[in-house]
């Protein structure tokens, strides 16, 4: 395998890590507005991701940084091309991060409600916007010969992109509900389980539509395989939810997310940014890649750091593995 192919896989892996981990952060954020009945329950939900959300978010920063290092052209084209959605994403990330940290810093009702609303809205928007960006990237953008995105922001509002946004919103909310059922105890756990069943059914319908469309417009044999795994994962997650096997349900929804990200990247490959204007102007992984020297250094760094990161993040999850209920909130 060529180094730039390896790095395509590694970038896909970083995004998979991001969506697997932040997926349930977004879901918990959305659900804290609907699933929780009172302030204590909202706090229970927020605290299920309390110690880990920051580390989860770094997967995004690393994915961006690694893209800059390994595929500078991709980084430049993607980020300048998706200017307005990224502006919205960044604002949501900023407000949500501050909301987590500042919500409990003052006792006032208004203060806390404001930050709680911020968590709900920013999480929901983020869940949907990432779907919009990724669907558009896979479908292709009006890329000119210099790998610059032309056209206005309205090009983003293609039905496929909107379907992608709806799909990731429901998918991440489902993932969050499964996570909530796994991490809480008492009433809220029962409600989370029930919500997971509904959301799972909705996810399955949207997944069928979105993955079929992806397959039809830009898929190949590999992406078909990944889509099949995703479908199987979702169905297994639904079945496990129905039986009350929360650990299994979470593992399966995780597998489904990984397979969906894989399907998207496989549909994209060997391009990183397809052009809707002219096939000759597609930006491919090979064209966008950094030099072999840089890729080699990055490979060594990733080989050293990634297992370590996974190990200490896993340890963090293990330290905070206990279920949380309203009795734990002082």
């Amino acid at each position, binding site marked *: 395998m060529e180094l730039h192919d390896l790095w395509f896989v590694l970038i896909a892996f970083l995004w998979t890590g991001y969506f697997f981990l932040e997926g349930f952060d977004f879901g918990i954020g959305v659900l804290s507005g609907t699933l929780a009945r009172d302030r204590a329950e909202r706090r229970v939900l927020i*605290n299920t991701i*309390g*110690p*880990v*959300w*920051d*580390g989860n*978010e*770094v997967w995004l*920063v*690393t994915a*961006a*940084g*690694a893209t*800059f*290092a*390994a595929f*500078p*052209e991709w*980084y*430049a084209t*993607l*980020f*300048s091309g998706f*200017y*307005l959605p*990224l*502006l919205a994403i*960044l*604002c949501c990330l*900023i407000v949500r*991060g*501050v909301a987590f*940290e*500042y*919500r*409990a*810093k*003052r006792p006032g009702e208004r203060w806390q409600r404001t930050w709680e609303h911020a968590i709900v809205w920013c999480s929901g928007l983020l869940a949907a916007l990432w779907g919009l960006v990724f669907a558009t990237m896979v479908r292709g953008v009006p890329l000119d010969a210099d790998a610059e*995105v*032309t056209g206005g922001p309205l090009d983003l509002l293609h039905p496929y992109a909107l379907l992608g946004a709806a799909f990731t919103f429901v998918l991440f909310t489902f993932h969050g509900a499964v996570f909530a059922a796994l991490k809480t105890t008492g009433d809220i756990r029962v409600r989370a389980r029930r919500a997971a069943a509904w959301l799972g059914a909705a996810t399955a319908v949207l997944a069928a539509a979105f993955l079929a469309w992806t397959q039809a417009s830009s898929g190949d044999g590999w992406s078909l395989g990944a889509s099949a795994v995703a479908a199987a994962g979702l169905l297994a997650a639904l079945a496990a939810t129905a039986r009350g096997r929360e650990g299994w349900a979470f593992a399966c929804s995780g597998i489904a997310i990984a397979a969906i990200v894989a399907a998207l990247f496989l549909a994209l490959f060997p391009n990183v940014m397809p052009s809707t204007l002219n096939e000759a102007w597609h930006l491919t992984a090979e064209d966008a890649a*950094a*030099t072999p*020297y*840089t890729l080699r*250094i*990055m490979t060594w*760094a*990733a080989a050293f*750091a*990634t297992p370590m*990161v996974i190990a200490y993040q896993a340890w*963090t999850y293990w*330290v*905070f593995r*206990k279920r949380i209920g309203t*009795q*734990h*909130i*002082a």
Partner: protein
Amino acid sequence: MDLALADETLARWQFGITTVYHFLFVPLTISLAALTAGLQTAWVRTGKEKYLRATKFWGKLFLINIAMGVVTGLLQEFQFGMNWSEYSRFVGDVFGAPLALEALLAFFFESTFIGLWIFGWDKLPPKIHLATIWMVSLGTVLSAYFILAANSWMQHPVGYRINEESGRAELTDIVAVLTQNTAVAQFAHTMTAAFLVGGAFMAGIAAYHLMRGRHVAVMRTSLRVGLVTMVIAGALTAFTGDRLGKIMYDQQPMKMASAEALWDTEGPAPFSLFAVGDVENGHNEVAIEIPGLLSFLAHDNFSEEVPGINDLQEQLEETYGPGDYRPNIPLAYWSFRWMIGFGMASTALGAAGLWLTRRRLWLSERLRTSEDEPPRLALTRDRTLSPALGGWYWRLMLLTMLFPLIANAWGWIFTETGRQPWVVYGVLPTASAVSPGVSQGEVLTSLVIYTVLYAVLAIVEVRLVVRYAKAGPPELTEADLNPPTRIGGGRAGETAADRDDRPMAFSY
């Protein structure tokens, strides 16, 4: 298009505003992480409650601050690609590597272990819990190193070649990029300046409480730690600044000539104390100077020639073709002065405080105070400062909290704007670095949104810091004094049922 609204101008303002804002939180985060870790170490080693209370107090302020540092830093990771896509294409092969290394090796560390530290008070045994804050501290320092190496490459590109075919910079030597003298000097200068910020922050808030005679035991310790940090960091900042200055004279003479408003090459060259210049015609109208000092700052002797702006301009035109190679000279001149002035003023106030609040040595028996009384401010061995003057010292100390922050901001404004018109010195002009595909409206929109959002968050953040700083250190709870002995939260002689229903020590 009118230059005032050129894409480049808007993108520069945006980068300037967001970066200066980010760097208000960065130095405080770097230094408070280490200082909090130090205080917690003192608690774990001695078991004295005042150290635990100090750890909790400064740790809380640290967390309020790091939250803003994280979210404002997030934006920077994307801004290169969004507003400066031509720059990103041109330098990505070189510049991307330190950025990716920073995320992989430092950001994961910081963010994961800060979660363990915040939520781990009742889940981890004291020594492991202590290790987590040291990990956070290590992460902050590492990330500073990588990002400063990346910035130093823009100031003084090394370890690369230009690929004629693709027209891009390509990395040839990562070790050169990570260890060049600019990177090392920038890192040393930035680190010491960061600790000056943290030291002054601690000393200022401690002074606020000591002036009112509250929380004395904790605040005496904090004042001492703060003042010592200020003086050591201040002295090292001056030293590293001098070294960095010499490197700059070597690598970017135009920046340093602008910093001194030195129009014509002179040897020996004077250090300017105050100048009013005529930028158009390239000379000073008013100049108060110390003869020979600039030669020393540049070359370690008092007579060597230092090149001036007008001569450098000619020289650069010969090398790079026609154009204006001068940065904004009044900005460079004054930012350099504000940086040194505020930085050294805070160091001097720290040194004065260290002398005024000294304890056993050089202080007569009757003036010594116990741990539970505020220290007496003593000028000589037997004489205290009058209450009025003493009150003024405490107030001045409180004000001094802001000085190093101002100095840090001006220092960065100087180093970044002094490099104009280059984004990569001598290689890539700023004007060719902006995103061609991003419209002026988009940049203007994001500029307005970020500025407003940051302004609102700044007000929220400052009010929270003031609130918590005024409240003082918390009383210790039963749980604080009875830390867990096992990972996961168990204490000696406790059943699983007791453990499982105990409220969390910290929850959002």
